[in-house]
């Protein structure tokens, strides 16, 4: 009862958000957050719940993104069709990949996804006649205002969360978790692990591919380095998942919010606070500090990863109980 009230409240806030905060910059950030919620949820399905860690999530993202862009460039179909079709294309990729690579266990599967990621990136770069290589593909945005994009992204994010929630509460959900916990035991109990791993991967690919299609339509420019990026997409997906909480429904949502926030806060020095302070106070210390802070955002990611793995291995949502305990302890100590 309490939980659904909180969720509804959150949903209400999100729905009115773009009307309340008209600043296009913050709207842009929220769209990014929502996109990452979708990607993170997709990642979570296969990695967090089914235990097959995906190291190359960008493979599906990039396929989705390129589908949308190529539909426009080669077939002159509106890139908006690329959104659903991008998801489909990603699933079409997931299918043979899973078929071939699911015989691999644990870290080997993870490495295979990484290899897939890099191979796709290379292909996209050298197959210039198809993808224009590093020249990239430009898609003019349909709307000038960010608001339509915001609602589409919100729709996608909600779809992802609902999908994960529904699937995990169903029989499939139990199968996925059993595969994660002990694949051989599951197999011996008569669960067709190969089939369910495929299902999980395809669902994940669908969500991530949809996000890719959205990216093309919103950002307007893609090239192999951007959409098949190991660092910016694949590893970011992992971070979103583990910081938020693997194997939880809302984990990726929290993770997405935190990661985008951390990145922007560092890049802009506290949304421009530090540089502004530097300019007004005229302290050189402030300007150098803001410069270091903006350059430190990747460093902060690395430290965040290490800290989370060491102290909060199940992410913020997963280890929420230990966080609460720590906070209570703090408050008691202070009083």
């Amino acid at each position, binding site marked *: 009862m309490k939980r659904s009230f909180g969720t509804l409240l959150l949903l209400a806030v999100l729905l009115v958000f773009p009307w309340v905060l008209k600043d*296009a910059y913050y709207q842009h950030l929220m769209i990014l957050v929502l996109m990452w919620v979708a990607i993170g949820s997709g990642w979570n399905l296969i990695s967090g719940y089914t235990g097959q860690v995906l190291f190359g999530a960008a493979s599906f993202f990039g396929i989705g993104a390129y589908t949308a862009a190529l539909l426009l460039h080669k077939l002159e179909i509106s890139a908006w069709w690329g959104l659903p079709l991008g998801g489909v294309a990603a699933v079409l990729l997931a299918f043979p990949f899973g078929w071939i690579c699911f015989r691999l266990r644990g870290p080997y599967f993870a490495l295979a996804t990484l290899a897939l990621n890099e191979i796709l990136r290379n292909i996209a770069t050298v197959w210039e006649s198809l993808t224009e290589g590093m020249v990239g593909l430009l898609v003019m945005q349909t709307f000038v205002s960010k608001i339509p994009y915001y609602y589409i992204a919100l729709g996608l994010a909600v779809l992802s969360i609902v999908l994960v929630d529904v699937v995990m509460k169903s029989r499939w959900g139990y199968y996925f978790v059993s595969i994660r916990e002990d694949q051989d035991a599951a197999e011996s109990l008569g669960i067709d692990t190969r089939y369910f791993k495929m299902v999980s991967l395809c669902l994940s690919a669908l969500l991530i591919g949809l996000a890719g299609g959205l990216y093309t339509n919103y950002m307007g*420019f893609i*090239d192999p380095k*951007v959409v098949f990026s190991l660092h910016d997409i694949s590893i970011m997906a992992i971070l979103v998942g583990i910081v938020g909480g693997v194997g939880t429904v809302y984990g990726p949502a929290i993770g997405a919010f935190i990661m985008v926030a951390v990145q922007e806060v560092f890049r802009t020095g506290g949304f421009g606070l530090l540089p502004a302070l530097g300019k007004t106070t005229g302290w050189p210390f402030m300007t150098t500090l803001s410069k270091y802070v903006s350059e430190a955002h990747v460093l902060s990611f690395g430290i965040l990863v290490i800290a989370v793995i060491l102290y909060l291995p199940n992410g913020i949502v997963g280890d929420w109980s230990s966080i609460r305990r720590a906070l209570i302890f703090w408050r008691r100590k202070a009083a």
Partner: protein
Amino acid sequence: MNRIVFCLFTTVLVALVSLGLVLAAGDPIKVGVVLPLTGEQAKFGEIEKNSFVMGVEEINKSGGINGRPIDLMMEDDTGKPDVGRSAIEKLISQDKVIVVTGGYSSSVTYAVSAAAQQRKIPFLVTTGSADKITEQGWDYVFRIGPPVSEYPKALNSFLAEVVKPKTVAILHENTLFGQSGSKEFAQQCESTGIKVLMKEGYEAGAVDFKPLLIKVKAAKPDFVYMISYIMDAALLMRQSKELNFNPKLFVGGGAGFTLPEFASNAGDAAEYVFSADLWSPTLPYTGAKEYFDNYLKRFNTPTEYHGAQAYSSIYVVADALKRAKELTPEGVREALTATDMMTVFGPVKFVSYEKKKQQNSLPTYLVQWQKGVLETVWPKNVATKPYVFPVSEWSQR
């Protein structure tokens, strides 16, 4: 107790922020700049940033824009197109700039100019050289630097008059700059009767170019044209020397080949290498030499064409702001279209020709490394030293 401290802290914080906002608003005119201040391209970002800063200080000291100073709002695009997008969004919505300049990497510039066109904010491209950027018919985008297809203009005339080669091998890195530049050059060669024996791309950062160079050597091209950034350029030359590969000439397509680091890293393998170049402090443009000397004195390191582009960009922007009928994006845009001035980078006038729109058209130059110094060798009337051609083989030096 804790709660009181917390409240105090927040109040102080809010006060500082508002103070900052209040002081920052009002008088100055805000000009946005998008540059790679961090990441792989930070080196160039820094040269351009320093040049912008130097230019703005001079402009403000001599009265600014009709008495109002320019406030440079710099945003870091980290070398990534999507971050570049975020950067220009922030400049437009939060900082409310009326004009943006900058743009180093072609891919980032492409994405940022699309955004500028859509939001109807004039964008003066400083460096981003892919031809496509000014071929989209965008009326809010202007470019001061030449498109990459024109980089080898001087080279082409040199080849036609002096070298008269029959074949060429083109090597390029797989980036927007490399792929578009090589495609254009290949087309230019074919149209002037030079046969392109091979055109091959590589991923930047390769350790060993020997397999590639072996293939090129076996094809026996008259000359080799390479589009690379510094370290690949240095390695390509060093390894060519190791293989004793001697085509009639080695030519670089600008970028990596004209930086001082190229000579220091390639050592004597850099000797006699030609390159296309966009600018040199010895050119007869007002203020070129002073800019070079001032930059060197202040920042302790030499500048080169990217810096000159940046320095000139801010002067062009300032000029447009002075002439603008009203200080709105549309007003600045109109003023920019009427630009006709001389800068340290050369004359600036935005014209439309062939597929291009609002592109500044400038001559380019051919330079050659001679004894570790980059000398301008073509066209003859601006040459600082005569060119060395034919070039002796590696083993005979």
